[in-house]
């Protein structure tokens, strides 16, 4: 017996199978490397050659609930700090215990992060998209600081290799991707295809 339709599904329909990947850049545009997610989305948008839906969310809060609806897969891009060298790229299926990205905890101005968003979606009976995090290791998040050269180099790699990343994520179930991947600074084989 199939699961009864949720309130959300009754009003909005089930998530469309095969819907395009949504790429959501998070961060603070005025805090050094913390702007990395926003910058990658802006650069992809300016290049104009991706079919993915691109969203720059400088102040996530409750709006995160909206960017996880009506889509099959979402890639969140955010600054991370794990002790790795600045510019390291972390590609992580979410939720994951391996790395605690900033988006998973309540540091937004409303105490509303991804954890709360997922809890709310579950309470509402909304369908979950597949979720992945592309975390970029930061050097500095000082207010007003420019981005570090390590993070700028990481941005160049992600933007130039974005079509390969999309292919990798689209085939994630087939290629058996289930755990975090780490790419040292300057590794142009990212994301491994």
């Amino acid at each position, binding site marked *: 017996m199939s699961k009864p339709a949720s309130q959300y599904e009754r009003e909005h329909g089930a998530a469309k199978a095969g819907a395009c990947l949504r790429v959501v850049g998070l961060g603070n545009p005025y805090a050094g490397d913390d702007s990395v997610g926003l910058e990658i989305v802006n650069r992809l948008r300016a290049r104009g050659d991706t079919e993915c839906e691109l969203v720059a969310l400088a*102040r996530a809060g*409750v709006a995160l609930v909206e960017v996880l609806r009506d889509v099959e897969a979402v890639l969140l891009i955010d600054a991370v700090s794990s002790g790795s060298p600045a510019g390291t790229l972390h590609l992580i299926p979410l939720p994951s215990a391996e790395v605690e990205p900033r988006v998973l905890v309540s540091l937004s*101005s409303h105490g509303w992060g991804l954890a709360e968003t997922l809890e709310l979606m579950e*309470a509402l009976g909304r369908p979950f998209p597949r979720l992945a995090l592309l975390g970029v290791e930061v050097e500095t998040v000082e207010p007003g600081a420019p981005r570090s050269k390590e993070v700028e180099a990481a941005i160049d790699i992600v933007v130039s290799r974005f079509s390969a990343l999309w292919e990798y994520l689209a085939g994630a179930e087939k290629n058996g991707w289930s755990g975090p991947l780490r790419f040292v600074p300057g590794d142009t084989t990212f994301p491994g295809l």
Partner: protein
Amino acid sequence: MTTSPTGPSALPLRTVKVENLSRVEGEGGLYARIENGKVREVKLDIFEPPRFFEAFLRGRHFQEVPDITARICGICPVAYQMSSVHALEAALGVTPGPEIRALRRLLYCGEWIESHALHIYLLQAPDFLGYDSAIAMAADHAKEVEQGLRLKKIGNDLLEILGGRATHPVSVCVGGFYKTPRRAELLKLRSDLEWGMEASIATVKLVSGLKFPDFTPDYEFVSVSHPDEYPMNERKVVSSTGIDIEPAEFERVFLEEHVEHSTALHSKRADNGKSYFVGPLARINLNFEKLLPRAKEAAKTCGIAWPSRNPFQGIVARAVELVHAYEEALALVDAYQQPARSRAEFRVHAGEGSAATEAPRGVLYHRYRINDQGLVEFAKIVPPTAQNYRRMEDDLRLYLPGILDRSEPEIARACENLVRNYDPCISCSTHFLKLKLDRE
């Protein structure tokens, strides 16, 4: 909770501490000391660091002001933009045309919608329905929470079209807008706005059926007032005790002062030192006849006797204003034609001007003095929450004696619920409350 003897006089002393107020904007706490069943001291501890925006503005070009002041608040940036542009236009003698005026009201509607929907459904409804959070409430009330999320999103969509983005809009300037939307862009939202108006009317019915504590202090309500319309952008400031002043007289009548326990200033009446009340309840009480027809009908038939002095019924006032904002947005979108010129032209000269507009949380007053190069020499900003702090403390002083027989968690919850009536903009960073009871 028990009382305990303290000191040589052995007076029963109780101390109530709420270290972190939850589901409010920012960081603040509450302290109260009760002796012999009498509340001796109440303090809203606002410990968020001061932000010095008024000092930042000195030396900046006047046209930078709306973009800088928008950064004061992520929930109500439009209010800060509106009060600043109106005050600077008063200083420069600029009067934007009716098209710009209408577009500014539409922008303000977007902000009221997203802010009111957020507060009603995600911040305050859990208080009345007995849940700790919107997430806990959503499991049992998914339909209502989905409705609230959609109502809020439409407000954000409106802000994005008019302001260039939903948070900290970038289109507003002194004289008008850097860019105005095409009519077709706004018309895309029309069916959403129609849905929103009906859903808001349903919201009024929903929240007016909640159980409100019996608490009706003798308030002085203060709001902006306009002869022909429900107050948003213009223009005088009025009160329920007969104040009726131009914005330029605001600082003569209302005084901000520093209090030791708060990094935010507290406002009071300059003449008698009394607190006053700003926000949706004040607006609706003072401007009921100017509500648009559907909003007025919803208010008249919801079972609340207006004017209301019960602060808990502020949630109903907010819901009625949600109807009004959707109703007005719909009318403005229908009438909209993209103006030939997006902003008025004017000559820069030295001057001073002030303005009060209605942020979602109440009166927001700005005053600026600029020099002949257009650089800001002086700035003053009086936000609604600073005006309400003293009133919140007075409310707690009146409310606490009636609830001291409750358990510690219940007292903490009741105090928070009372403060949340004001939708204080010190932020909603946590979802827990620590109540400490010191027994001496």
